[in-house]
């Protein structure tokens, strides 16, 4: 495979990334020389103990945090030179984020939550609603579209959150402990759903998890310990 082909098929490229947090006069090194390539359409699990830097790496790839040094290229875009505004616009088009605690907006119904990222597009109200309903149908919650988060179970909330993450058809889905707050059955359902998005919709997925069983659903597993990556 040529270099150009490799670039074309690499969804995420993390090159020699370091991340250091400054706390008063203290420097906390979280990531130290990370190199990681995730091919397009892969389902990757990122594992490691608490404080190993998993979420930090996920945030850097999702473009919600900045590297101290090194380079992060996602969907063909080098995130380093982008301004905050450009980065926000880039996130809205390329990243679908799934949180551990779902993070749905409590005052909005399920369909309104799913529609939220589409408010940043030029779609009409009708088109936005149609797409949101399609996403809800895919996650099996079309009949709960008018329900508010407090009226849904944890598993259902996470499915709505997944619908919100995929509704803009992003290049990469990043999930931070997506089953961390769910019972076994709900967790299995969520993982199956993520597999579906990976297999049927060819979404590149990067999932941070503590759960070895969840990690087995991914095609590739990476381990992070004390800011250093090991396969």
């Amino acid at each position, binding site marked *: 495979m040529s270099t150009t082909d490799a670039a074309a098929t690499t969804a995420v490229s993390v090159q020699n990334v370091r991340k250091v947090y400054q706390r008063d006069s203290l420097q906390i090194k979280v990531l130290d020389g990370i190199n990681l390539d995730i091919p397009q359409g892969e389902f990757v699990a990122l594992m490691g103990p608490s404080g190993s830097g998993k979420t930090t790496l996920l945030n850097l790839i999702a473009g919600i*945090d900045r590297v101290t040094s090194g380079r992060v290229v996602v969907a063909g875009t080098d995130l380093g030179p982008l301004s905050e505004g450009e980065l926000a616009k880039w996130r*809205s*088009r390329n990243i679908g*984020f799934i949180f*551990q605690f779902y993070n749905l907006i409590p005052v*909005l119904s399920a369909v309104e939550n799913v529609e939220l*990222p589409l408010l*940043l597009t030029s779609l009409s109200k009708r088109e936005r609603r149609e797409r949101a309903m399609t996403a809800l149908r895919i996650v099996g919650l079309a009949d709960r579209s008018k329900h508010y988060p407090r009226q849904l179970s944890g598993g259902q909330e996470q499915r709505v959150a997944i619908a*919100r993450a995929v509704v803009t058809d992003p290049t990469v889905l990043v999930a931070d402990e997506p089953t961390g707050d769910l019972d076994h059955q709900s967790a299995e359902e969520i993982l199956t759903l993520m597999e579906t998005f990976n297999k049927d919709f060819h979404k590149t997925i990067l999932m941070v998890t503590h759960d070895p069983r969840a990690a087995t659903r991914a095609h590739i597993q990476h381990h992070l310990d004390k800011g250093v990556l090991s396969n």
Partner: protein
Amino acid sequence: MKFAPLVLKHLRKNWVRTLSTVLAMSVCILLFCTLQTVVEAVNFGLHAGNASRLVTRNNISLVYNLPMTYKAKIAAIPGVTGTVINAWFGGIYRDPKYFFANIATEPEAFLEAYPEVMLTPDQKEAWFHDRRGCIVGRKLAQHFGWKVGDTFEMESTIPPYRVGHPFEFVIDGIYDTDEAKYPATDLNSMYFQYKYLDETTGRKIGIGWLVESIDDPKHAGAISKAIDDEFENSDTATKTETEQAFQAGFVAMAGNLAFLLNGIGLAVAFTILLVTANTMSIAVRERQQEIGVLKTLGFSSGLVMTLILSEALLIGVLGGLVGILISAAILHVLPNVPVLGNIVAGFPNFGLSPQTTATGVGIALLLGLLAGFVPAMTGYRARITETLRQV
């Protein structure tokens, strides 16, 4: 507009907080509009006087009258082109709360000196020749449902004018004015024949105050001085001033009151600004996680800031509208409230003006903007990783 549901739903979620903040804001605007209307009325009164008319009264107090002989002496002073005798009757019609000015005057001289008081020729003639005749302002007539030819009785509260029975009056005319030319004309007063008062009381009541027309407003100072010098060493010294200054004397107390009330209003506005800002800050602090989520989804910091400011502005607009509506209602019923009604009845054209309404809305928007600024900046600056870590 597509973000409006998000803003509205947040306000609706904490409706108790939203309602209390809107009410606090409305109190502020209510105070402003009501007090500003009083201030406007006072200022209106201050500028209502005609510059080419002087008013002479007893130097000690308006309570004491001037001798009748003064009219001729003053009329002879160079620059004085006409004089009108006036006396405050102090009559009460039916109920003390229905206050209006009722003044005994000389009809021909009065209408000559006051071109803003407009009557039809028939009504003028009728009044000139009717001893019991009176004229009433259009607004006063509307208030009591009076028509030309109606009669009514009124008794004075001033001892020298109390004759054991009420005075009977016949409405010979309902005066109006050209509001474009004379916007400050009081249409809530009643004028009647001085002769009727003088003859009915049967005593030499003298002059309450004398109005002089002068040849040139520029000579007002010199003529005033000449009049007062004329009587300086007499038993009854005079005080002559322009009609404007004379009316300012009436409203000075009210002016001070308005100043004081405006000060209170400003303090209340500032307090409400702090309360609203604090409420908005709490609302935004509670939504740190949501702000983080919105930014993760791709909402720019500027858009998040705009959403928070929109909430604050909406609270301001709602508070402003409620405040203005309550203020308009209060100002509408105020003239019928005992005691307070008497005070405001002295102000012509009392009511909520479009300027005050517009300023009220402007202040509400400004307060909303100021109250929302700090929370909006907090939202603007919020870092995604920090806000999501608080989950």
